[in-house]
């Protein structure tokens, strides 16, 4: 009961914040709502016994990615943003499409039943091994190769970002 209550709170706030993020005129406000949203999602992860992911969510998403967004928003100085319309002209089409898909998907999910057998990482197991250790073991054995590739992807992204955003040195 209590869990459902909490879930209800989080779900409601997450949905509300998502809506705020996509509808605010001022990008800085959007970023701030998004920050709050990330915290709620991180808390939701805690409910799902994923404390490491929750920490990562805050550190990486909130602490790094979103700061990057904020930086760009500020660098671009979007004060004139507030004077123009926030949606494109054909927004009702977008609204209709996304709402329709959502309706269908939710309708399907309602009758969704999980049939697969539970895996070996039960809550007790994780508690004993600590979440970080359990996650790390899988990551560095089974998923070592994807992990290395992910690091490479990040490296390339960093280089690419520098190249893209680098200011051309003035010729004169």
């Amino acid at each position, binding site marked *: 009961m209590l869990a459902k209550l909490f879930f209800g709170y989080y779900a409601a706030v997450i949905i509300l914040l998502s809506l705020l993020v996509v509808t605010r005129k001022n990008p800085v406000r959007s970023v701030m709502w998004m920050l709050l949203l990330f915290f709620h999602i991180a808390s939701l992860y805690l409910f799902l016994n994923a404390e490491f992911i929750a920490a990562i969510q805050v550190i990486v998403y909130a602490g790094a990615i979103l700061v990057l967004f904020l930086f760009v928003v500020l660098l671009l100085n979007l004060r004139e943003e507030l004077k123009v319309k926030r949606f494109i002209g054909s927004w009702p089409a977008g609204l209709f499409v996304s709402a329709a*898909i959502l309706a*269908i998907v939710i309708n399907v999910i309602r009758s969704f039943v999980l049939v697969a057998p539970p895996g070996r990482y039960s809550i007790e197991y994780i508690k004993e091994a600590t979440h970080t250790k359990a996650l790390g073991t899988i990551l560095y054995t089974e998923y070592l190769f994807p992990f290395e590739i992910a690091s490479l992807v990040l490296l390339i992204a960093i280089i690419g970002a520098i190249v893209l955003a680098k200011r051309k040195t003035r010729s004169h």
Partner: protein
Amino acid sequence: MNNYLLIPFLPLAAFLINILLGRNFLKEKAHWVSILAVAGSWVVAVMTLVDTMAGKTINQDLYSWIVSGNFKVSVGFLIDQLTVVMLIVVTTCSTLIHIYSVGYMHGDKGYYRFFAYLSLFTFCMLMLVMANNFLQLYFGWEGVGLCSYFLIGYYFDKKSASDAGKKAFIVNRFGDFGFGIGIFMIFLTFGTIYYEPVFAQAGGFANNTVNFLGYDVHLMTLIALLLFCGSVGKSAQMPLHVWLPDAMEGPTPVSALIHAATMVTAGVFLVARCSPIFSLSETALMVVALTGAITSLFAATIGLVQNDIKRIIAYSTISQLGYMFLACGVGAYSAGVFHLYTHAFFKALLFLCAGSVMHAMAGELNLQKMGGLKKYMPVTYLTMLLASLSIAGVPGFAGFFSKDEILWLAYSGPSPVGKLVWAIGTVVAFLTAFYSFRLIFLTFHGKFRGTHEQEHHLHESPKVMTIPLILLCVGAIASGWVGIPHLLGGGAHFTEFMKPVLGHPEGHGTHSEEWMVMAVSVIAGFSGIGLAALFYLVRTDIPVKLAAGLSGVHKLLFNKYYVDEFYSFLIVRPAIWTAKNILIGITDAKIIEAIVNGVPKAIGGFSQVIRKVQTGFLQHYATIMATGILIIIALMLLR
């Protein structure tokens, strides 16, 4: 260890390295890569020769290229005696000419490009000769054609060069068209395009006929003639010979390698390779023999009066190629290949010498402006003299043995046209000797007739050029010694060696007849040399008078029987006229453009309406995509 794989792929590697790195990194050092690669190929080829002499042949697929139903093509290699001979010819000439090019092309701005193309050519040629199926052969065939086009048009900023390149390419298309159809016919008939099954089954189809253009044609004759079309084009036989003299616009090493020693002999190689098919058709063989004989006579007569040093050698090449076809036509394939093999050496040598002379004359090609170069360029003179002796059929030189073998087998062979072609061949031998020595005498003897600056500039070529000359010269003299006939106490080893592939035609004549044939050809050769000496050393006024006296003939010969003009009248101009008036004027302007303009106009009108969809806004597209997803999900889930 499939080390024979290295033979084609070393040059390919050299090509890739040069073309990718040449411009920026290798630059003046591009030749090292190519030379090392080709020399490596040569070494492996020699090793392969040793293996093959021991009786080991290879027929192996390496890699499936195309598989479509029962049509299967692979990259595969067939290495038998014929292939090995060709490998030796190709890699030897190629290696020496690569080295020669270092000196000849020195300082050219497209240095790396030249070597890249040369290596690519070598690769394609090797793929051609090593193929074990017709499609790979065709690949090599077209590849060498492409390289030939690149290299003829190497000085692409010169209009005549690029025109010559185009001409070669277009003329070859005529032949290749037939060749391509021939390959289709083979596939239709045999259901495969691999040599082995095709040749094995060929006998079974000996009496089949096929309806071709409304006529019932003997199947093997048809296939053979279609394949021969390709040969005619590539080997510059009548009537498709016109491209070869023009191809001399390319750099001289190219002329030597492609248009004398290797590529042009691909036609002969094809006929020899397909000998099982040709042998089944009397008619086809007759056509081959006559084409060869007529071409050789025809080219030799033109060669008599030309003044351009490279063109003389080019006509000589055509003539000698005719000889080879003549041999094939009378069933003496091994003799033809033998001549191919000896010819490669002395003809390459002749070209390289001509190149050396050009080098000294600063690009001058006209014989009438040379003379007396003997004392300036002793090495070139000596090697060229020996090559000419070889081509003239002077006993003891390579050319003598191969030519004699051809003539004897033509005379004695079973071919119905044997005697005729022998007679023509003998005449050609005389003419060959004559124009070859005309070239020698006009170039190296007498007084220098060029300008003073040119005389001042005369010099022997650098070592990097003369050493290949000397090496080739050894070949030009000695390469024939492997095929000394039994008559002269030799072992006719070459024919024996080729026997497993090409059979062994037996001459049906007595020893005295054989001596007679040999004597006649030798006499023809010596009289040709003698006449040339008389005309151009002793009585230099005779040629002029003769030209004046026989001005009609001279003009005819000088203008190469007006073949080019004839083609121009018959094909080129009608084609241009048609193109201009009918195709552009009517078809293009009235029909196609009406369609072309009308349809777009209609579409344009329509798309004026439709283009509104193409807003350029990312989100509109995304919305449409999402709508698509929505529809799909809806269909899938709510069905």
